[in-house]
C-alpha cells in the first residue's frame, strides 16, 4: 500500500468514525440529508432581493434533495465585504457590486482567477443601471447628465473610493460624456464639474440615500435603479421622482462560489446550485420584482414597464476590465484623486 492509499484509508476510517459519532443511524450514502447552511456575503442594497431569493431557493432545494438549507446573509459596502472575506469571513458565496471586489478575493487565492467565466453572462444573473432620484415634481428640471453640472444643482453620490455603487455612478457620468464627445479629456472635465456640485461623500450607497431622503440635502441623488425604486417605496412616492437619463452604464454585479470555503464546509454542491438557481425563471421573476434587470429576455419583457428604455453601455466598451478601470480611476493618483485635488 503506498502512502496515498494509506492516507485515503485513514481518511475514510476517520470519516466513518466521525459520522458514526455524530450521526448515528444516518445513511452513509450521499447526498447527506439533514441541514446545510450557506453564508452569502453581499453588498448594501440587496437585502430585500436575497430575502426573497433565499426562501425560494430553500423550498426548491428541499423538494429536489430533501435537504433543508438555511442561507445566512451579510450586507455592507461591497469593498468592505470583500475585505471581510479576505480576512477570514467564511462566505460560501459572494454576491458583490462589482467584479473588482471578487478579483481582490481571487488575488488572495480563495477562488480561481477565472471565476467570472464559470457562470453565464460574466457570472452576473441580474444587471442594473444608474439613474437619478429627484424631489417631487423635479423642481430643478433634471433630465440628463448635463443638468447635473449646472450651477446651483446639488448632487448626492457616495465616495467612489469606498463604495462600489459610487464607482458605477462615476463611470456612468464619465462614459456618458466620453460617448457624446469622443474625448476622455472632456469626460474628465465633466466629471470634475459634477463633483464640484457634490456637498457630501458618504461611504456607501445607503448612506447617500439617507443623506438625500432623511437629511434633505441635495437636489438629485445618483443611485442604482433598484435603490431608486426602493426609495420611492420606503419613503413615499409622493416625495420623490425617478428620472431615467437617456444614456447610462450597464452595471453587472457578479456572483461567485468561494472555492476554499465550500471545500472546507463541504457545501460546494448546494452553493453552486444556489447561484445557478438565480438564473432560473422563478428567481429571475423575483429579480425583476425587486427592480433589478433580469437576464431572462422573456421576463424582462414581462416587466418592461418598470424598466425604462435607457441606452446602456458596458464597462468593457469604454473602460476595459474592472482591474483596468480601478487602476485608471479609483486607485491612489487615479482620475478621481486628480479631479478632487484643489
Amino acid at each position, binding site marked *: 500500500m503506498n502512502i496515498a492509499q494509506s492516507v485515503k484509508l485513514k481518511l475514510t476510517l476517520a470519516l466513518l468514525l466521525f459520522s458514526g459519532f455524530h450521526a448515528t443511524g444516518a445513511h452513509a450514502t450521499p447526498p447527506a440529508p439533514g441541514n446545510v447552511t450557506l453564508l452569502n456575503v453581499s453588498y448594501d442594497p440587496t437585502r430585500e432581493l436575497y430575502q426573497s431569493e433565499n426562501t425560494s431557493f430553500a423550498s426548491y432545494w428541499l423538494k429536489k434533495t430533501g435537504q433543508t438549507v438555511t442561507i445566512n446573509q451579510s450586507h455592507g*459596502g461591497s*469593498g*468592505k465585504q*470583500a*475585505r471581510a472575506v*479576505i480576512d477570514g469571513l467564511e462566505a460560501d458565496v459572494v454576491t458583490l457590486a462589482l467584479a473588482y471586489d471578487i478579483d*481582490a478575493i481571487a488575488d488572495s487565492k480563495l477562488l480561481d482567477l477565472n471565476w467570472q467565466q464559470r457562470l453565464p453572462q460574466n457570472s452576473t444573473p441580474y444587471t442594473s443601471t444608474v439613474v437619478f432620484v429627484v424631489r417631487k415634481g423635479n423642481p430643478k428640471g433634471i433630465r440628463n447628465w448635463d443638468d447635473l453640472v449646472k450651477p446651483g444643482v446639488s448632487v448626492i453620490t457616495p*465616495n467612489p*473610493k*469606498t463604495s462600489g455603487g459610487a464607482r458605477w455612478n462615476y463611470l456612468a457620468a464619465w462614459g456618458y460624456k466620453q460617448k457624446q464627445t469622443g474625448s476622455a479629456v472632456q469626460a474628465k472635465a465633466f466629471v470634475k464639474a459634477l463633483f464640484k456640485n*457634490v*456637498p*457630501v*461623500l*458618504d*461611504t456607501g450607497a445607503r*448612506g447617500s440615500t439617507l443623506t438625500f431622503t*432623511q*437629511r*434633505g*440635502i441635495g437636489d438629485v441623488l445618483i443611485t442604482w435603479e433598484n435603490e431608486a425604486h426602493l426609495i420611492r417605496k420606503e419613503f413615499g412616492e409622493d416625495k420623490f421622482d425617478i428620472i431615467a437619463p437617456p444614456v447610462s452604464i450597464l452595471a453587472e454585479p457578479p456572483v461567485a462560489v468561494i472555492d476554499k470555503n465550500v471545500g472546507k464546509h463541504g457545501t460546494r454542491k448546494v452553493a453552486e446550485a444556489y447561484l445557478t438557481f438565480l438564473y432560473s425563471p422563478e428567481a429571475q421573476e423575483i429579480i425583476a420584482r425587486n427592480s433589478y434587470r433580469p437576464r431572462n429576455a422573456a421576463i424582462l419583457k414581462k416587466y418592461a414597464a418598470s424598466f425604462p428604455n435607457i441606452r446602456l453601455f458596458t464597462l468593457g466598451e469604454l473602460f476595459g476590465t474592472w482591474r483596468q478601470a480601478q487602476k485608471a480611476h*479609483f*486607485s*491612489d493618483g487615479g482620475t478621481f*484623486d486628480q479631479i*478632487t*485635488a*484643489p
Partner: protein
Amino acid sequence: MPPFSTNRKHILPGFGLSMGYTVFYLSAIVIVPLATIVIGTFRMDPQAFIGTVTAPRVLASCRLSLTTALLAALCDSVFGFLAAWTLVRYRFPGRKILDALVDIPFALPTAVAGICFATLYSPVGWIGQLLAAKGIQLINTPTGIVIALIFIGFPFVVRTLQPVLSELEPEIEESARSLGATRWQTFRRVLFPHLFPSLLTGATLSFARGIGEYGSVIFIAGNLPYKTEIAPLMIMSKLDQFDYDGASAVAFMLLIASFTMLLMLNAVQRWQEKASH
C-alpha cells in the same frame, strides 16, 4: 522608593501574579495589535511610506483631524470646567441626573451620536432649519466635525476635574478671601494652579480621542477630499482599496501623534508635581 519593590514585604501577596496578568493583558489588547501596525509599516518600502504619508490628501486629512480635535479639546476645557464646577460645588435638584448624563458620550455608540447630530443639524432638522434660514450650514463642514468631537471629548475633561475639585475645600477660597484676595485673584492664584494639571490631562485625553474618532464624525463631516476628510477615514478608504500597507502607514502616523502627546502629558504632569512639592 526603589523602582522594583518586590523585595519589600507587601501586606497583600501576589505581586508576581498580578504583574504577569497586567503584562499579559497589555500585550494581548494593546501591544500586539499596535505592533502589527508597526510591522506592516516597516514591511513597506521607505519611499512608498514617505510617498503615502506626504501625499497632499493624507496631509490635508491629518491637518483637519489635528485642528478640529484641538478646537474641540479647547471648547471642552472651558465648558467641561464649568460643568465640573457646577456639579461639584452646588447642590440642586436633578444634580445626580446631570452628573450621570455626562457619561453618555462614553456609553453611547458614537455612530448613534453622529446620526443624531447629522439629523438635528441637517437643513430639515430642528436646529438646522433655524440655521439654514440664516444661511448657516454646520453639517458637512469642519464646524460639524468640531461639534461631534466636542461631544465625544466632553466627559474626559469633566471626569478628570471632578475628583480634584471635590478635594479642594471651600475653606481654601475662604481663607484666600479673608487674606484680602479678590475673587479673580483667588481663582487665578489659588484655585487654578491646583486644577490646571487635571484640566490639562482631561484636555489632552479629549484631544487624543478626537484625533482617532471615526464613528460619529463620518455622519456629519461630509467626507470631501481635502475639505472635510478626517485622517481615520483615509485609513478606511485605503483599506477599501485593499491597500493594507498604505492604511498602516497613515495609522502609524496617527499612532506616533497620539503617543507623543501622551508622553508630553506625562512629562508636564511630572514637572507639575515637582513644582508643587
